[in-house]
Structures are given as structure tokens and as C-alpha cells.
């Protein structure tokens, strides 16, 4: 009988594995990632955990996986050599992109190299209009020539993206057929199938990314599946998608674009289910690691999806305005804002004598000065050690001692002396400044979207999240924080909580008075049936299928759409009235006004979700702790708002009883929670720490 499920989350430095029992027992394993062959660390960690739990491989009932193979292939230029077939006159659409640069005032900016080089971008004679009429039929002779050249180039992966193919796919379909005839082994990615959505660059880029990473992802997931089989773990491998749902491995191989950057999504999914369990409708997530901090929101119990994101798009604050640094991927993904601030961010003093933090990071190597691995520049982690937030003897249960004196000295030399500040003022300054940088990510998902952050509960995780959560919350007016169990590996939990999910989209660019109900309802039926038949094939019967329909809408002439739930199952006059009304409300909420303008339907979206028979989230999570929890003690901790050192009690999570006023430090295996004066901490029955602002 299957006793445990395993969540495997691969990061740049560590691979986190969480074993979750049906009774809520949890074992955490952190192993060093193996970039030359990621599967190696995964198999090693799984074997370790199975052994430590005294299980046999057959006891593992499911493996949920978040991986970075696709992202790395793109960032390192190691994907499959790919050809692109496009409309005559437009082969440079991919490389021109949106021509904006992601950085202002940078004379040496270079564009990311296109994933398909110019000599492998081929044009065929043909043209559609935006309404799907054939303006110029497909020129078969030009297609033949292109096929000759692709054949001669030896390329195996072929992307097809023609202008307005979302409105009429026949030319793309004919080309796909011709490619298959000529090159039976070619791997095809066709834009009208992957993303029948308006905007040629975004559609082409998405199709090309799919073509570029498909063979790489197929090999990785194929190898991992067979390794699992060999070991005796004969259960379905599921993969986290960037939209927060899981996908079976077969569909991840066919449409890898949905699974690029699956790690960050998993943390938000974890917070989503945590919120559901605790009955919290509005959650802001805060995930702080070594080099970046990420934020997202869950509003009225729903995760927010962004329609697109850029792979490798850089991590500057304000990234929503400065696009172009990466490869655009137009698939719904959890709306994350990211800033390049983390424990490794380096503190420095600029020419006018002002303190700055980042964007340079000491990374994992050499890392902060206190790691004693050769780092010489003071970092945020060094400041946190100096302030007494981190216990030099306790990280990873004492397995990773920190050199507090070295940290303090670096702050003294590089910050304190130039600014004429005491070491502790310098450390406090670095801590506050990095908070203000990270607050930009939190503001990007709240105030930038017209949301008041004070309505949200902050769920903080990642290595550094629980240290900085209270200070950040305070700067945004947030009064409640949850620190989930095992915050350092929280994302891996998300892999186990999520449901299987498939997303479909079709552009149907019509104003309401142009809308033909039969046609629109036909699209609805088709997308829903695609979803249901996939779910059937995966073993979900009708009662366990959840099918959600959404509409992307705007006022005529506006640029960006807002996504709304479709209020009825079919299009009718009454439905349109309801849609219009709810669009107005949503628009007002986001932008502060409603207009009297006509409505424009842009896309129809369907999400098909497979629901499990039993709950995927246990009521209570109980870590199986190898080492004993620290006994209660106390130490000197510096709190900026008090302006002095305070003798502060230190407790382990399990020994937190009742409501305890800050100041307080809560230490556990993979993280430390700081409760400043003015906040109180308590432990709920599920094992979560709740922090509340007093008064």
C-alpha cells in the first residue's frame, strides 16, 4: 500500500525532496543538485529518504516534480537546433522582438541571441487576414524549396508560425503535413495548435521555445521515468506547470512550454492550499532565497495568473515596464514578481556616500562572508548574523557553522567606516534597505494591480523569508503572517498539493455585436471536449472533472485584457449582459473607473482539472525530526525599531505554546523566524506559526 508521496524540487544549488505521509508525517531531504545529470541527485535523494523511512520503493504512491532543465537549456543556449517556417517578409519578427530594451541608459546593452538563427528562419508565400480570410494562398513551390533547405540543414525540430494563424490554421496545417511527409522524424511545434492567440511575436516566440526545448525535456523526463521504474517506483510522474497545475509526464513532453520555471509556481501553490486549509481568502506570498525574492498573491481564494512571462528576462524591479531581456512565453503562469535581492545580495557604498544593496550577489559560491568560503563582500546574510537574527551555531541543525566575527568585520570595513556608522547601524541599514528592495516585489503584485496590501495575510517561506517577513509586513501595513512548517523546502510541498490541470485557449476577436453565438458556443464545446477527453484518458471520470471557462476581455481599443470567469455555460444575450457588468466591476477594481465603451472579446480559455478522490492536503504536518529541537534559551538580538540590543528568548517551533509576545526567535532545521517587539507569535493545530501585529 502506498504510504508516502514524494515532491521533488530541483534548484540551482539544492534538490529538495519532501516525503509526505497520508497521516501528515513529513521527511525532508536536501541533496546537492547534479547539473550534469539532474536525475542523479533526484534518484539519490529518493533512495536516501526511502531508506530512512524504512520503506520499499512500492510504498511511494506518487512523485510530483518541479525542474529547471528547460529553463537552463534556454539560458545556456543548449536546446535543440531548430528551424522556423513563417510568412514571407517576416522572418525577423522573432529576432526583432518588441525592440525595447530591458535597461535604460545602458550603452552596452546586447539583445539575447534568438533561439533560431536567421539562416534557419524560412519564409513561405501565403497570407491571412485577421478575420481568417485567405488573402494569398499557400505557395507550394516556395514550401518545397524551404523543405529542401531544412532537409539539407539536418535540423530535427521545426516550428511553424504564420501571420494570423490563430484566425485560420489551414496554411500551418498544410505545412505541418508537408514537413511530416518529407521529414518523418521531425519534431513539430505548430503555433495555431500551441497558442491560437493574436500577436505574432509572442506566438512565434512561444512556438519556437517549445520546439527548442522539447527534445531536451523529452530526454530528461524520459530518462527519469525509466530510472524510477527501474528502482521499483512504478507510479505516475507528474510535473508542475507554471500555471500551478500538475501535468502528466506525457503532456509535459509534448508541450514543455507549460512546464518552464515550474519551481517558483510550486511555492505559490503550496501557499494557496495552506490558505484553503486555514480559511484565508487573501494571501500574499513571499519567497526569499539566496539571490532573488519572489512575491505573488492569492485573492478571494484564487491564484492570479499572468498571461505571459519572459524566460531569463532579468530580475530588475519594475520589470513589467522593461521587457525584452528574455524570451517571451505566452502561456498562463502564476503572476510572480521577482527582484534580485536575497541573502547573498552585496552591500556597498556609492560615490555620493549612500548605502546600496545588490543587485550583485555573492551567490552560493563564494557566498556571504560568514560562510567562510572566501566571500569578502558583506551581504544581507552577514547583516542578519551580526544583528543576532541568525544563530551562528544552528543553521541546518548545526551542520553549517557561520563565522559571525568575519561578517561583522566585513560590515565594519565596507559599510561602517565609509558611512561613519557603528557596525550595528550598518548591519541594520543593510537589513532595512534589502527589505525596501524586496517590498518592490510585494508592491508589484498588490499596489501595481490596484490591490491594497493590508487586506492580505503574508505567507513567508524560502530560506530567508521568515527572517524578513515581519519587517516587510510592517512597511506594507500587513498585520498577519503565516510561516508554514519546513519553510525552507515549502515549494516541494506545493508539488504534492496541486491538482492535474490542462489549459486551452482560442482567440475569438469579436466585439459583442459581432459575436455569432453558434460559432462562439462551438469554440466552447471544442475546448471543453479537448479538456474532458484528456482527463478521461488520464483516468478521471466525469465526477472528478472540473472544467472552468474564462474570457479575456477589454474595452474596444484597450491594450491588455482582464480575465473573467464565464458566468454561464453558453453564450446568449443574457450572458453578454452579465459579462459586461462583471467586466466593469473588475475594471473599476483594477483601474479605478468604468467606461461606457463597447466590449471586445479577445480569447476564450478553458481549464480542465482532474480532482483526486481524497484530499491532497493533510490536516496537520508533522516533521519527522532527526535531531532534537533546540532547547529554549536566549540571546542578544538587535531590533532597529527599538534601537538597541534586546535579550530575546529563542525557542524551537514545537515548543511554541500559547501566544507569546515578541521579541522572540524561533529556530528550526531549515530556517529562523524573527518576531520583533510589537508582534506576537502562536502555533496553530496544523503546525503553522502565526505572527500578529499587536494592538
Amino acid at each position, binding site marked *: 500500500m502506498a504510504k508516502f508521496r514524494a515532491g521533488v524540487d530541483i534548484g540551482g544549488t539544492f534538490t529538495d525532496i519532501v516525503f509526505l505521509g497520508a497521516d501528515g508525517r513529513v521527511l525532508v531531504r536536501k541533496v546537492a543538485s547534479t547539473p550534469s545529470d539532474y536525475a542523479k541527485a533526484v534518484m539519490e535523494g529518493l533512495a536516501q529518504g526511502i531508506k530512512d523511512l524504512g520503506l520499499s520503493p512500492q510504498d511511494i504512491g506518487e512523485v510530483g516534480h518541479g525542474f529547471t532543465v528547460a529553463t537552463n537549456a534556454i539560458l545556456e543556449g543548449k536546446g535543440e537546433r531548430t528551424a522556423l517556417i513563417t510568412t514571407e*517578409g*517576416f522572418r*525577423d*519578427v522573432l*529576432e*526583432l522582438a518588441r*525592440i*525595447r*530594451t530591458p*535597461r*535604460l*541608459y545602458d*550603452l*552596452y*546593452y546586447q*539583445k539575447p541571441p534568438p533561439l533560431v*538563427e*536567421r*539562416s534557419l528562419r524560412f519564409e513561405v508565400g501565403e497570407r491571412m487576414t*485577421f478575420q481568417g480570410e485567405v488573402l494569398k494562398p499557400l505557395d507550394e513551390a516556395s514550401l518545397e524549396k524551404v523543405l529542401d533547405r531544412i532537409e539539407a540543414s539536418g535540423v530535427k525540430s521545426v516550428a511553424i508560425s504564420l501571420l494570423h494563424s490563430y484566425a485560420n490554421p489551414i496554411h500551418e496545417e498544410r505545412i505541418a503535413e508537408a514537413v511530416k511527409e518529407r521529414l518523418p522524424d521531425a519534431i513539430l511545434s505548430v503555433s495555431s495548435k500551441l497558442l491560437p492567440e*493574436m*500577436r*505574432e511575436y*509572442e506566438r512565434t516566440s512561444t512556438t519556437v521555445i517549445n520546439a527548442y526545448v522539447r527534445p531536451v525535456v523529452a530526454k530528461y523526463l524520459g530518462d527519469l521515468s525509466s530510472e524510477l521504474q527501474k528502482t521499483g517506483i512504478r507510479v505516475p510522474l507528474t510535473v508542475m506547470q507554471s500555471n500551478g497545475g500538475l501535468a502528466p509526464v506525457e503532456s509535459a513532453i509534448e508541450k514543455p512550454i507549460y512546464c518552464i520555471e515550474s519551481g517558483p509556481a510550486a511555492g505559490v501553490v503550496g501557499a494557496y492550499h495552506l490558505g484553503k486549509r486555514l480559511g484565508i481568502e487573501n494571501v500574499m506570498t513571499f519567497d526569499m532565497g539566496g539571490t532573488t525574492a519572489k512575491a505573488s498573491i492569492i485573492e478571494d481564494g484564487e491564484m492570479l495568473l499572468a498571461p505571459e512571462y519572459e524566460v531569463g528576462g532579468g530580475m530588475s*524591479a*519594475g520589470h513589467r*515596464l*522593461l521587457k525584452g531581456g528574455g524570451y517571451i512565453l505566452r502561456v498562463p503562469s502564476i503572476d510572480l514578481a521577482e527582484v534580485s535581492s536575497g541573502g547573498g545580495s552585496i552591500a556597498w557604498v*556609492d*560615490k*555620493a*556616500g*549612500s*548605502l*546600496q544593496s545588490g543587485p550583485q550577489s555573492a551567490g552560493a559560491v563564494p557566498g556571504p562572508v560568514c560562510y567562510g568560503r572566501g566571500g569578502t563582500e558583506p551581504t544581507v546574510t552577514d547583516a542578519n548574523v551580526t544583528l543576532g537574527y541568525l544563530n551562528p551555531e544552528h543553521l541546518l541543525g548545526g551542520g553549517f557553522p557561520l563565522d559571525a566575527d568575519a561578517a561583522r568585520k566585513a560590515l565594519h570595513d565596507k559599510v561602517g567606516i565609509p*558611512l561613519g556608522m557603528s557596525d550595528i547601524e550598518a548591519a541594520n*541599514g543593510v537589513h*532595512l*534597505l534589502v*527589505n*525596501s*528592495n524586496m*517590498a*518592490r516585489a510585494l508592491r*508589484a503584485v498588490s*499596489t*501595481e494591480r*490596484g490591490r491594497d496590501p493590508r487586506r492580505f495575510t503574508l505567507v513567508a517561506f524560502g530560506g530567508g523569508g521568515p527572517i524578513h517577513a515581519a519587517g516587510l509586513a510592517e*512597511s506594507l*501595513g500587513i498585520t498577519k503572517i503565516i510561516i508554514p512548517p519546513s519553510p525552507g523546502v515549502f515549494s516541494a510541498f506545493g508539488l504534492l498539493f496541486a491538482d492535474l490541470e490542462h489549459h486551452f485557449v482560442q482567440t475569438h*476577436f469579436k466585439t459583442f455585436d459581432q459575436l455569432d453565438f453558434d460559432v462562439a458556443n462551438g469554440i466552447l464545446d471544442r475546448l471543453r471536449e479537448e479538456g474532458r477527453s484528456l482527463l478521461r484518458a488520464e483516468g478521471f471520470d466525469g465526477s472528478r472533472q472540473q472544467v472552468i471557462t474564462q474570457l479575456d476581455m477589454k*474595452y474596444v*481599443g*484597450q*491594450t491588455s485584457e482582464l480575465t473573467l470567469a464565464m458566468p454561464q455555460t453558453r453564450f446568449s444575450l443574457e450572458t453578454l449582459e452579465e459579462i459586461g457588468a462583471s467586466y466593469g466591476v473588475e475594471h473599476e477594481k*483594477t*483601474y*479605478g*473607473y468604468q467606461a461606457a*465603451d463597447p466590449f471586445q472579446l479577445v480569447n476564450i480559455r478553458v481549464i480542465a482539472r482532474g480532482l483526486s478522490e481524497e484530499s491532497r492536503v493533510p490536516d496537520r504536518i508533522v516533521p519527522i525530526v532527526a535531531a532534537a529541537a533546540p532547547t529554549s534559551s536566549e540571546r542578544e538580538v538587535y531590533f532597529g525599531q527599538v534601537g538597541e540590543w534586546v535579550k530575546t528568548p529563542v525557542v524551537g517551533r514545537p515548543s511554541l505554546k500559547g501566544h507569546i509576545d515578541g521579541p522572540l526567535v524561533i529556530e528550526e532545521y531549515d530556517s529562523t523566524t524573527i518576531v520583533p517587539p510589537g508582534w506576537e507569535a502562536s502555533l496553530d493545530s496544523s503546525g503553522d506559526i502565526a505572527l500578529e501585529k499587536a494592538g
Partner: protein
Amino acid sequence: MTERQGLDPITRNIIKNYLESAADTMAVTVVRTARSLVVRDNMDFSTAIFNAEGDQVAQGLTLPFHMGAMQPALAAVREYFVDDIKPGDIFANNDPYEGASHLPDIFLFKPIFVNELLMGWTCVIAHQTDIGGRVAGGNACDNTEIYQEGLRLPPLKLYEEGELNKAVWRIIEKNVRVPDKVLGDIMAQLSAIRQGEKEVLRLVADHGLENLKNYMTDIIDYTERLTRAEIEDLPNGTWEFTDYVDDDGFSDDPIAIKLKLTIEADEILLDFTGTSPQAKGSINPNFAFTKSACYAALKNLTSPTVSANAGFFRPIKVIAEPGSYVYPQHPAPVAARGLGGFRVAHTVFGAMAQALPDKVPAAWGGGEIGASYGGYIDGKAFVFLEFNNDGPRGGGPYADGPDGATAPVTNQSNTPIESIEADQPLRITRYEYVADSGGAGKFRGGLGVIREYELTADEATVQIRSDRHKFLPWGAQGGSPGSQTHSILNPATENRELPSKFMMDVKKGDVYRSVQAGAGGYGDPLEREPEAVLKDVLLEKVTVEGAREYGVVVMGDGTSIDAAATKELRDKIGRERGPLSLEPKVVRASEIR
């Protein structure tokens, strides 16, 4: 200058971060709610926050060209209204002769009050698709006086103590050709300035009014110190440079922009004395915009961590003669002033390329192409406006200029072709790089872009503003200039070459081809790695013929280099051309080939 008493630098940076991100929030609001292609897709707008005295504290990550343009427009508002500035007021200004830029750029300002006390301002400037006047799109080059250019809104109240001034609203509505787009964009501006106000008020709650006011001013002083420290690191001296605008669309006379740039200690002086007189046509940059273009250019030469606020302007002095091209006097037309601003920035870069020869890239290309189409379908007006504008970038000391990327003083986006076709009676029939358009160099200039527009309505008036047909984007350190701009009517049939600035009526099926100028190259073309030249040939970015300018001979199969012939050709070119001039210098297209 020293730190103010009682203020700490960490709180200052925290407040600075917050205000800059608040200005970004305003910008996101504009993008999401705007109606026109030029604002929502081209992103021709900017956002900023000011202190009570009208000094800019923070700009959103928007257009560099607008960095210094908002402050003078606000100064004019404050000067006119003096004490008559009340809570709930919202001010508008688009008058180039009262601090604004050109008529299509409507500036909106909202004063922020706490307990009846004015403590700051928010601003959004947005380029409107149309502003009335004799030509749709508001960018005509062939106006001869400001009165032809459209609706002029001197500093006035769009809202009075929270009440919309309906008279102004209706005047705008009836004076522009596409009121849904223009008023829709104004609504987006209003949302954003209100959003910005909310953000600032939240800071007041956190830091207290007096404290925050002091910090807002301190942020500017700090930026000034940082800017001065950056300038001190530059070499002292005086450098001169002259760049040219082809003509004003009326006569063939070139317009010379003459600059003497002096760096001394921690200040920079830009002296435009000797520049040609103001033009008859409307490509004149008004003086506020000339200054803004100078700031945007110089901002590229200092650390990107320096904020875009009033402190950056203070150590930079710009002087020019009233009545000259860069300081036109009323009633000179200025509708297409963007073109002149780009050339002012080129002139600044040309002088800086001599001051910092190992840092400053060659000129970007582009040709400042602004295209507008206007007409009527079934009695309803349409106006299409886009800037197929400035970029590609010049070759630099470390790498080739990125092909097709925007110039460093602007950061506009292109417009999705599928959106244009769904929105406008136009079809884009071609959009691609132009081979051999980048100037040769050790690091070649970026390639220009071709874009073709076919009209699908029965008829329309097309109006084109462009330049660099005659004077080429200059190379640096021995690099060659980029290729010139072309405007061509119906390339497949009559293939008629059009002037740089024109307005004409077109019919259904007529195709206008716009060919951007390529960017200048950097360094001696003979020093470019032959392999890099071959790679460009394989990518069809440089032709086999074009490779010869680098002294590289490609074999008959087109895929490998003839090493012996290459050596011979390079020797020959080196012998015949004489010593290579390293100074940037503007050359005419007619002097080449």
C-alpha cells in the same frame, strides 16, 4: 553641499525606492488602461512625482527623452496659478511656449495635499494620437506656425476642486479626430496620477508630512551630489561637434546643430551658439525639449544608479541663442520636434565620443521615422500613428550595435502587426532587417529595418516625418557611417523615392515602404575578425559584396573565406585609404559610393 541635518541616508534610500516604484506603478496603470496604439503599444508616455516646489523627485521607467520635459511644464502651471492651487485640482498643459513639448503631448499634473497643505505633485505625460490641426496625427512637418498644429491647452484646470471642467473636456472632444482614443488615454492618465497620489499619501502616513517633505528634497540633493561625483570622474576639456538635419521639408538647406561641450570639475556646459536659425517647418525642438534631450543623452554616460530627477539636471547647463533651431521663438511650429531632439542628442553623443573615445559608441541610425495615416471610413475618422523610429544602435567599444534595437535615448516598442491590422485599415506587408545597412567597423553598426504599410481603406492622407536621407549616422574610431533612410511609394510598381518629409493622399492598395537608416560602425573595419564577417554573410546580414568593405573576400560557395584574397584586399585598402581618421564626422550620403 552637505547632508541635511536630522535625515538619515538609509531612510532616504527607502523613501527613494518607494517613490520610484510608485512612479512605475503609475506607468503600469497607463499601459494597461490606455486606448491608443501609440501609448499602449509604442509606450510613448512618462510618469513622475515632484516635491512641493515642483522639482522632479522620481521618474517611472519610461522614456528617457521625457526625463527633463515634465519639470518645465509644471513650472509654467505653478507660475500661472500661483496661489490658486487647491485640493482636487488637476492641471493640463500642452503649450510648447509655456513649458510643454509639442501639442500632442498632454501633461496632466495633480497637486497632492495633506491638511490643505501642498506637499507634492504627480504627473503623466502621454503622446496623443491626434490633437486636431490641419493634419491627422499631430506630427506634420510642413506646418509653418503653431496655430496650424492643433488644439493648444495652456496651463489650465481640467478638474477644479474635484469637479471636471466640462467645457475643457468638450473642447478636446470636438477638436480631435479620434475622441475615443484621446479621451480614453486622458482617462488612463487621470487613473495614473490619482494612483500616484494614493501612494505618496501612504508614505505620509508612515513618515509624517514634514519628514517626508524634507526627504523628497533630500533625494534630489543626494542625486545632485552623486551626479557631480560622476562628472568629476570625466576628463576636463572642451569638445566640439556638429550634426545635421537634412532639411525642414520646405527648402533643401541643411540645418546645422553646433555644439561646444565643456566639462569642468563637476559641471558640464553645453553651448549651442552658432546653430542654424529656427526652421520654417515644424521640426524645431523647443528649448525645454532641447534641454531634455541633452539630459537624456548625458544620463547614458553616468552610472545607471543615478536617479532620473531634478538633482541630475543641476550640474548641467545648456545655453543657446533664442531664435536658433534649438531655441525657436513663438509662433514657430514644433509638431515634429522629436526629430530635432534626436539630432540634438546625436550632437551631444558626437562631442562625448571625442571626450571618451573608448566608451562612446557610434551614432544610432533609424531616421526618426514617424508615420501617420488619417482618413474616414463611413464618416468615422481613423488615425494611425507610429514611430518606426530610432534604432538600431551603433557599434561600440565592446560589441556590435544590436540590430533593430531602440536608441539609448528612447525606449519605444514596435506595434504588433496583428494588432495594427485588427485595429486600422492597414496591412503590414514586410518587416525585416536591411542587409548591409550597418556601418562597417571592428564592431559593426546595427542593421536598420524595413517596414511596409499597405492601405486597405479607399483613401487616406499619409504624412511622413523622417531624416538621415542626406546626412548619415556617423561612425566612431574609424568605423563607417550607417546607410541612409529611404521612403518609397509602391516599390513593386512605380518604386518612387519620396523626400524625407511629405504629406500625400494615397489610395487603396498603395504601399509606403519605410527603410530605416543603419547605425554607424566603431573601429577600423579591417580589424574585424574575418570569421565575424563570414558569420554575418551566412546570416544574410552582410552580403558578399558588403564583406569587401571589411576587406574580406568570401569564396564562391558563399560559406567560407578566401584567406589569401582577404589578406591582399586588406593590404590594398589599408594602403590606398591613408591614415584612418578616428574622430566622429558627419558625411553626406552623396559622398559615399
